[in-house]
């Protein structure tokens, strides 16, 4: 497919990228491109300038702090997370990244692109909401760090504003996590998903049932308490060719229990 005409810059630093984004209202950051290139083919989006972040080394890599906190550069690919010994400090990360699409997509797609797209069917928004990730956003006026609740704002919409970049994702220490999804084929797009974390307290995040991950804190980790929490939640799932809204609500309950059970097993 021939794309619409588009400008292209490949900055070598975050400062250059921010300047390029600020210079043109129609500029858009290009991360792994595994969503954006298709969006451009479909003419669902038509940036005037692509600011390719692939040349910025400062946005790549995984650091493990002394307290077990992971700091993951926004341009780190799924394959890099799967292969990283540091990332095994929070094993669920590599496990879920290995379930995204296929080898080729995992080699290009990035953690930053995944969360900044905030497609409700993506794997990482509910996972990162469940495990208490924080997101560092840099703009012309400096940087700020926000929680998942303040990061995911709507479908395809996050706290990263015009002229800003997500630079890194910080993930606290923990091991007792789970993730369950019903997908279109093995490792395909999620029809419904749930992530769970039992590090300190029970936290479940549901995907595909609202514009943003729905975070619940069941009173206990037993199946009845988890089901009750999902039943008591206000969900707004879409109906489409893959599942009705009612079926997605049903799946949310089942998957929440499965995710919690996996988290219990990995304790």
């Amino acid at each position, binding site marked *: 497919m021939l794309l619409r*005409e588009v400008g292209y810059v490949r900055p070598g630093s975050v400062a250059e990228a921010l300047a390029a984004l600020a210079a043109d209202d129609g500029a858009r950051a290009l991360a792994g491109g595994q969503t954006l290139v298709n969006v451009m083919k479909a003419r669902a989006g038509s940036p005037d300038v692509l600011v390719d972040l692939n040349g910025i080394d400062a946005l790549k890599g995984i650091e493990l702090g002394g307290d077990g906190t992971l700091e993951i550069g926004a341009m780190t690919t799924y394959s890099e997370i799967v292969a990283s010994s540091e990332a095994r400090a929070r094993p669920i990360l590599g496990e879920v990244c290995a379930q995204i699409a296929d*080898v080729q*997509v995992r080699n290009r797609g990035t953690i930053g692109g995944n969360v900044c797209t905030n497609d409700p069917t993506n794997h990482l928004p509910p996972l990162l909401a469940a495990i208490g990730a924080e997101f560092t956003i840099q703009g012309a006026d400096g940087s700020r760090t926000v929680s998942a609740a303040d990061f995911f704002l709507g479908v395809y919409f996050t706290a990263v504003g015009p002229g800003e970049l997500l630079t890194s994702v910080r993930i606290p220490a923990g091991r007792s996590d789970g993730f369950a999804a019903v997908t279109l084929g093995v490792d395909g797009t999620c029809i419904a998903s749930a992530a769970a974390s039992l590090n300190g307290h029970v936290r479940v995040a549901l995907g595909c049932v609202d514009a943003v991950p729905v975070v619940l804190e069941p009173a206990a980790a037993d199946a009845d308490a988890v089901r009750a929490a999902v039943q008591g939640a206000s969900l707004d799932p879409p109906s489409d060719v893959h599942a009705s809204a009612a079926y997605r609500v049903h799946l949310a309950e089942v998957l929440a229990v499965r995710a919690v059970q996996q988290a219990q097993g990995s304790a």
Partner: protein
Amino acid sequence: MNISVTINGTTCERDVEPRKLLIHFVRDDLDLTGSHIGCDTGNCGACSMIVNGQLVKSCMMLAVQADEAAIETVEGLSDDDELTKLQQAFKDNHALQCGYCTPGMLMSATALLRANPHPTEDEIRKGLQGNICRCTGYWNIFEAVKAAAE
């Protein structure tokens, strides 16, 4: 934009528009038509190439992003008129029928066997997950990769 790529060992410089996808650059500008366009949506894997050692779908990348990169396509697998062990195994195991997916399958299997010379059946399936074949039902392709790994 002027870009320079090394494709199957040969360095080429071309002027390309930023909107040109890597697959179109390789097929139309470099006349290497072995890599196929199947779905053009990143699902089928027929356009798979190895860029700087990594397997990618070349319809999901811009040509300008490959500036200074080393690209491998199906044309570069064998450096003479002989088939590689993997290509011979595809032939021996009837791992292709119409052949449309074959260049992508060969590149994915090549990347897999480089990283993991003796993959299990599950690892072969996972390694070829990004490539769709509508003729063979995959079985003979798995058999071919297994044979090439022996």
